[in-house]
């Protein structure tokens, strides 16, 4: 597949990126510009036919990020209410992922400086945590409790108010 860099209009230009595991992806320049890192590379003329290598982003999350940026770049400014709603729906569906992918997206969005996606992934993670007991959260994220029972008890005591729950506060339901 030939890189479509010979087009005239800047906005139509396709940017190639390469995942850590060597897979190639393409997205419009406007989409790539949503990533701070890619934008700087493009500005510094580092975007060539070989593609920009992204050392810490694997193909799986990169495919999603390309998706995200392409969708958001196409609808960046002057949104109508319907378009904004549609974008919101897209985001909601987009972020319905398992915890492994969520982790990949958190790392990749942070690394690539895609602010909107970072926020989306962080919000999603927070939504998974909120209103749950520590035990439930450990289970969701596979966190291993490395405290001794005594240590654990001590921490709970420090923040006694947060652990005694008669019923979950209604705003968390």
């Amino acid at each position, binding site marked *: 597949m030939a890189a479509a860099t010979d087009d005239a209009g800047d906005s139509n230009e396709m940017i190639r990126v390469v995942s850590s595991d060597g897979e190639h992806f393409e997205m419009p320049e406007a989409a790539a510009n949503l990533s701070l890192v890619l934008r700087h590379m493009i500005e510094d003329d580092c975007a060539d036919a070989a593609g920009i290598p992204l050392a810490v982003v694997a193909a799986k999350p990169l495919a999603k990020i390309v998706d995200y940026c392409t969708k958001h770049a196409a609808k960046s400014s002057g949104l109508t209410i319907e378009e904004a709603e549609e974008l919101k729906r897209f985001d909601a569906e987009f972020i319905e992922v*398992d915890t492994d992918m969520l*982790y990949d997206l*958190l790392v990749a969005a942070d690394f690539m400086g895609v602010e909107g996606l970072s926020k989306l992934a962080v919000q999603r993670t927070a939504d998974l945590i*909120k209103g749950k007991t*520590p035990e439930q959260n450990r289970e969701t994220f*596979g*966190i291993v*409790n490395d405290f001794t029972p005594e240590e654990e008890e001590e921490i709970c005591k420090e*923040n*006694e108010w947060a652990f005694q729950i008669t019923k979950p506060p209604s705003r968390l339901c």
Partner: protein
Amino acid sequence: MRTSAVAAVDLISELNDDVLLLILRFLPSATDVARTSVLSKRWRHLWSIAPCLRFAVGQSTCDISDDDEDEDEVERKEHGRHVAARRLISGVDASLARRAAGERNDVEVLEISFVYSSPYDRLNKSEFWGWYFDAHRHVADITSSHVAAWLRFAERHVKGSFTLEVPADYDVEGRVLLAELPCSARAETMRLTLGCATLTVPAARTDAFCALTDFHLSHVKLAAAGDDELCHRLGLLLSSSCCPQLRRLSLKHIVGLTALRLEAAVTLEELRLVYLPDLLQLDVDAPGLRLLRVDHCELQGSVARISAPRLEVLACDDLMHPSRLLFDGVVAVRHIKKLVLYSFHHGQDDPTAIWVLKNCTAVDHLELELMIGFIPEYKDIIKEVPNLPTVTNLKMTVCEEMGWHTIGSSLARLIAKCNRIEHLSINIKSEQDTYDYCSYPFCICRQPKGWEDQMISLEHLRMVDICGFRPFDDQIGLVQLLLTGSPALDTMIVELDGDYLLKSQKESKLIDFYIPCYEGIWVPCAWGHDYEDELIATKYKWTRKKQNRGIKINLVWLTAVSFFYGYREGTGGTLVDNRGLGDSSGSVMLMDDTHIVFGGRSNIRSTEAAVDDANDKVIHAHVDACDDANDKVIHAHVDACESSIVTRREEAMVELYKSSMS
């Protein structure tokens, strides 16, 4: 992929502190954040440096409709909430003390709210301090020393936004709550609701609030009410020397604020003064002010000098008497967001509202609250309203004290003064039960004779929206007047009053009224149920008939029986009406853009139908000729008009008899 899938390997803990803290920042409550400290050693220290702490008692559980609940159950719930709130009080104390003693003790956002949040207006404002829908039993547990500690923490450690909400203690006797206004050079937003605490104000010092952009203070008493020194200090603290960046200032529910002198920074854009019952003197210099709200302040005896040359939006129920008011900037106002006008006035002078209307000569957006009273010896105020040729957008809330049937005539007189309006919106609030028709012997009607014969000319009026409509003579008269006097009108929406619908339903009364179509068509656009659980229209929309868009269509005429049992099953068209068709019962079914099926008894010679189709279109059908012997329509015309009113396709119906033959 489902998210409930459990992670086999702990990846999240490998994220760096910045990302994890960002996650904690997005957690809605400090409880959630505190609980992460016990997850594992990796998470242990994050709670002590989390950037945002939000402590809140949470949502109101008060359900207004839930009257029948068992008292023991209510008591049990209340008790549970009280225990939880008390625990939160000690939680806030413990957390802030621990944080203050730590190393990274700055907080970007600190919110402490002991007021239950509610989708409803959580504080009913009918009384000065207001009252809550929920019992706030923990009011008595919050002491001056708690408040002092929280304010002190905020003063020292909050660098972004600080909110403290202590519920008002209107039902706790003999309780004294004291507080001192905190000063912070780093806070950007401060919202203090201080539970009717007696407030002391520190002496002003330069840059006391040098980063502050938003300040809200409510529910306080100034110590030693009427103490000029305190009022003076508060004014100074909020002036440009101490608050050089302030953009929004709001002072609400403050007792003892007798004088306010504000030399605002040029950045100040919005000033709200609400429920300041003791305010006698107001002196405001605000060169950049764009919005001023002065509401519920009982200002008739007060003196004011206001200089706000860039003012755009004004909202007030009342202002000082014009002879005691110097208001530079009133001519710049474009939008009057609230102004209360009583239709009758005691005394010789005009009320301040008239002064405002006369002096705001650039207003294009006017929102009036009209209170209609009727006392023969009082002065008729609507007569004093000047012509308002700059107004293009008129919004009125109207309330009639008794069922005098004067809403129509009063509004017509007011609307006639705004002859260049383009948008008109009327919200009728009828509080009294009243007779529908003036022909009833007991009607206390005060309708002026023949008012509906007047002509009002509203050449630019394009859109009218009326809600709270009751089909009484005067209100119908107003609608007719608007339809005949507005040649450019293209849409009018009339929504029936909910209480009226309910009452008719209870009394098993048929809602039946008639408004001519003039040059358009009425189509129902929202639905409810009547006493027999039949669908009835609750909202009607009038649109002007579009000319020259007639297309010929084919119509099939069927009897009601064959329509329901035969035709409908087999064809898959959209049923658009199954009620009235002229004087007979029958149905209309839309097959596609060019086919309409009429079903019904055959005594209709010629009729018109307005049909909503699935594509949000109104098709106006006119049956020219039909073959009675064979129950068939021979020829019909359809005008296709564009509109977007169909929200529920299955329920879209046609009001045939209403649109037939104006």
